[in-house]
């Protein structure tokens, strides 16, 4: 996985209007992690949903110069993939949800090969969350939208998952918008940090050089 030479490109948000937020314009460079924080209900998830084109919205988004309007919905979402806070699973076993064995990724997150045969019913919420990340990255996206990707994890698993995510994001040069609550996590992973205050995004400086 990750061996295919995909054109790395910027993710550009141009006056995206989602929910009650003021229009958002941001450019996220390949491999850059931009963390987004804010009180619950402030519109973080809605912004991600707009960027993934799951909700009708104003403004435009492009990935590596290709605009959302020019791609069919599923082509866009295959390129700009959102991982929701609550992942959905629809087959019986883990393996059926993955396009391939994903051995390396599973191994790095502490799963074994037999995880593929695990029944979805016996997964904990933390396991679901990490496997949802593996699943999303298995489809070779060109940009990532992560909605609290470590919300259900214990501190050790959080660190492990963070490190794995950061590594994959840098390796594949994925522009990433990462919704996070935890200040320490933001300090560890973010290249830039945007905080929602009221109805606007405020740049926070000094999180990380």
């Amino acid at each position, binding site marked *: 996985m990750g061996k295919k030479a995909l054109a790395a490109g910027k993710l550009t948000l141009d006056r995206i209007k989602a929910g009650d937020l003021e229009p958002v314009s941001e450019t996220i460079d390949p491999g850059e992690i931009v963390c987004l924080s804010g009180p619950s209900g402030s519109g973080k998830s809605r912004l991600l949903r707009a960027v993934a084109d*799951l909700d009708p919205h104003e403004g435009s988004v492009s990935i590596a110069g290709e605009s959302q309007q020019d791609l069919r919905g599923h082509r866009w979402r*295959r390129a700009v993939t959102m991982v*929701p806070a609550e992942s959905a699973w629809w087959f019986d076993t883990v393996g059926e949800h993955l396009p391939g064995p994903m051995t390396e990724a599973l191994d790095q997150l502490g799963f074994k090969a037999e995880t593929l045969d695990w029944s979805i019913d016996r997964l904990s919420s933390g396991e679901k969350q990490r496997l949802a990340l593996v699943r999303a990255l298995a489809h070779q*996206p060109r940009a990532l939208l992560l909605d609290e990707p470590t919300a259900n994890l214990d501190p050790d698993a959080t660190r492990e998952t963070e490190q794995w995510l950061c590594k994959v994001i840098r390796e594949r040069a994925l522009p990433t918008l990462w919704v996070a609550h935890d200040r320490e996590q933001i300090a560890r992973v973010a290249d830039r940090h945007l905080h929602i205050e009221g109805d606007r995004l405020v740049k926070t400086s000094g999180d990380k050089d």
Partner: protein
Amino acid sequence: MDVIELSWWQLAMAAALVLALAICVYWARLGVGNSLLLAATRTAVQLTLVGFVLEALFAVGKPLWIALMGLAMLLLAGREVMARQNYRLRGGWGFAIGTVAMFVSAFSVTVLTLIVVIGPTPWYSPQYAIPLLGMLLGNTMTGIALALDRLTESVRRERQQVEGRLMLGQTWREACGELRRDAMRSGLMPIINAMAAAGIVSLPGMMTGQILSGTAPALAVKYQILIMFTIAAGTGFGTFLAVSVASRRLFDGCERLRLDRLTAS
């Protein structure tokens, strides 16, 4: 052999049974006594009226009047399909999808059966056309209403799954494929069950009626088989069409799931 004449006082005896039931229902405080009496009254009034209409229609036999009767039946069935859905599409779609699907399936199967299979002269002869259309519409209506209700209900319930699939870059068809198949299945189940049980558990109403009115059982059976097959075709194709169009309508041009297009009825 002629069928034995039923007179009104004989019907009144059957009505007395319903009245006795109503008294028991009141006594047991089931709370459906009024509904029972109202429904019984409606049956009597509606069927009497339709009897007059059919007698007039048979006497006139003009294609225009038969077509109008067919249209009225279609529109009432369309309204019924809409009324049976807990969540339906906004803006006339809820009515239009069911009605058009029934028009395409039930009407065309009826006309095909009349012209190609039964072949009365003229082909629109109301004695054949109206009962056939009525049975097809009634069953197609049930199938389409069940399928659409299942579709909208399950898409609402499985919103997370559908959107999760969309997020992974699946097309709208893939994202709701399983729900579409479920909905189509539930539309087809009643006629599949009816065909499987026909003659063993239940004697179908039309066949019973024909036998009561003196038709030889062998011929009544042939008609019943014909009707079952045409109902299966009409219901099946109507369900396919309705579910296909309705599920497409649940997504917009950008393949977003648009539950805001549903309204609770």
